């Protein structure tokens, strides 16, 4: 892992594009294949990629374990939160129509938020799982 300067530089160059691609997949999910789940997986892949090239501990300096673990419940909480919000506004659970005066935009608004929830949970979970497996070590 000493002489792989090219690998490291290319990784650093690639990572922003990976994250940008994830955002594209996320927000363009309304118009083309993709969405929160796929974007979450790509974000997690970027972190895993970083960890493979630079090692586990440098990566955990940037994305700490506790942060990844926090993302897991946070996403589900956002998702159910949207449900409770629509409920409080008088619609049924996850009935997005009340989120805006025009139902069409209200739907889009609701969809964006729940996709954020999925993205959060999925990326957090995938990163945490990777950390958990990687941190296990071959011998006790």
């Amino acid at each position, binding site marked *: 892992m000493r002489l792989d300067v090219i690998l490291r530089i290319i990784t650093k160059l690639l990572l922003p594009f990976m994250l940008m691609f994830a955002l594209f997949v996320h927000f363009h999910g309304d118009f083309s294949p993709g969405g929160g789940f796929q974007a979450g997986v790509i974000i997690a892949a970027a972190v895993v990629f970083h960890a493979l090239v630079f090692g586990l501990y440098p990566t955990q300096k940037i994305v700490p374990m506790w942060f990844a*673990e*926090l993302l*897991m*419940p*946070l996403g*589900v*909480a956002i998702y*159910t*939160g949207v*449900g*409770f919000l629509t*409920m*409080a*506004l*008088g*619609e*049924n*659970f*996850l*009935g*997005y*129509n*009340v989120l805006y*005066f*025009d*139902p069409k935009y*209200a739907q889009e608004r609701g969809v964006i938020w729940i996709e954020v929830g999925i993205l959060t949970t999925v990326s957090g979970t995938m990163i945490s799982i990777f950390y958990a497996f990687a941190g296990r070590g071959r011998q006790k």
Partner: protein
Amino acid sequence: MAAGPVEVGSFNFMDQLPALQVALPMFAATLAAVVRKGNIAWLIALMTSLSMPIIAVLLLHQTFEQGVISYEMGGWEPPIGIEYRVDTANAYVLVIISIIAAIVMPYAKRVVEADIPAEHQSYYYTMYLMCLCGLLGITITGDAFNAFVFLEISSLSTYAMIAMGRDRRALMAAYQYLIMGTVGATLYVIGVGLLYAMTGTLNFNDLSGRIADLGPQRPVLAALAFITVGLSLKIALFPLHKWLPNSYAYAPSMATVFLAATATKVAIYLLVRVYFTIYGPADIVASHDVDTLVLILSLAAMFVASFVACFQLNVERMLAFSSVAQIGYITLGISFASQTGLTGGLVHLVNHAFMKGALFMATGALMLRAGSVKLDDLAGIARKMPITMAAFVLAGLSLIGVPGTVGFVSKWYLASASFEAGQGWLAFAIMLSSLIAVIYIGRVVEVVYFREPSPAVERITKEVPVSMLLPMWLMVVACFYFGINADLTANTAASAADVFLSAIGNASTGGE
């Protein structure tokens, strides 16, 4: 509420009950995962568990008042959207699960502190809440695929809970359960997929009408077979029960209590829902002898599993085999497809939950003080823990079916149903298998009361705390209260049975 301009209304608690029943534990689980302190997570789980019966009872009340409640998730009308469909039958199951959850939670604190390392306790309660959420979700939903998703939520959390047992064999138990449970769930999905390909819908109610139109075509029949086998794996219907004994024996005490009292019941409910609501109008179950098959397997479970239970050296394993046998009673009642039989099966759902809950709470208490539930290690322990063992004996009497206990009520209904069906010998079989229960409960009683305590037992100084004894005795009292005054449980079970039977087609009379 269909799409279209929607005015901002106001929150109506009574209308939102079905969603709250499932969404609250899910949200609480995320909170419990964030706090990372075992005590606070327990408090969150306790609060949620205590609020669940309130919602469930209100729902049951609503079904009595206004009949079937249809709740449209996201405001989309079924079958476009997912529907929560609450009738007396599933409200009844919701009440059972949530009451058990509410009783288990106060008990849980001490055993979890003993079983689970401190840094994992909050996650453990998270898993419990997700399991509760999954079980409630399966029960309340009116959509076949949604039921699968929640089945997996409850299963995955169950595997994780079982694997946290102190014994390393808990890991193997969890792994085997994971394999068999996933095969079961996948078979269920195959069945649903075949139905979907034939009808184009996933909504129970919609499916029911469309299958009645299709009649007994081959994919429909194959779907029935796949769903039956898949759910039987989840139910642990004999001979697909291999995962259950080890899972219950090696899981942490709290998981054993909770799962033994609830998990298999929900799978049974789902199977009954499929048989009666989906296949009922087409009258396929009875005309293709599926009920006879279930009857034979139930009988086999009642005898073989009870018999195996007699030879167990580990009390929790013994009770687990007894659970397999008791599941046989429930499915026996269902196989009659008659008012009395179904009532018997459904009332045994709640009765078995109470008595097994009490029994496993007692073994959990033994585990906490004696560190083992092997029969040899428990000699004379009744002298040290008289209150726990008294609860064990009383719940055991109920398991045997002594008059005045809930076990007797269930067996009374089942026996009457056998006579009604013109198969009196079944009543005799029910009695005979109860006698086997006398043997295995008797063995435990003999060891704990009449043998000299071992040095390890001598070292036990005190009973378990009141927070554990109280829930345990609450279950025992329920075993006797509903045994003497069975109106509440039996009448509700009878209304639930009516719901299921009302769906059966009038093409033939069904059943035997």
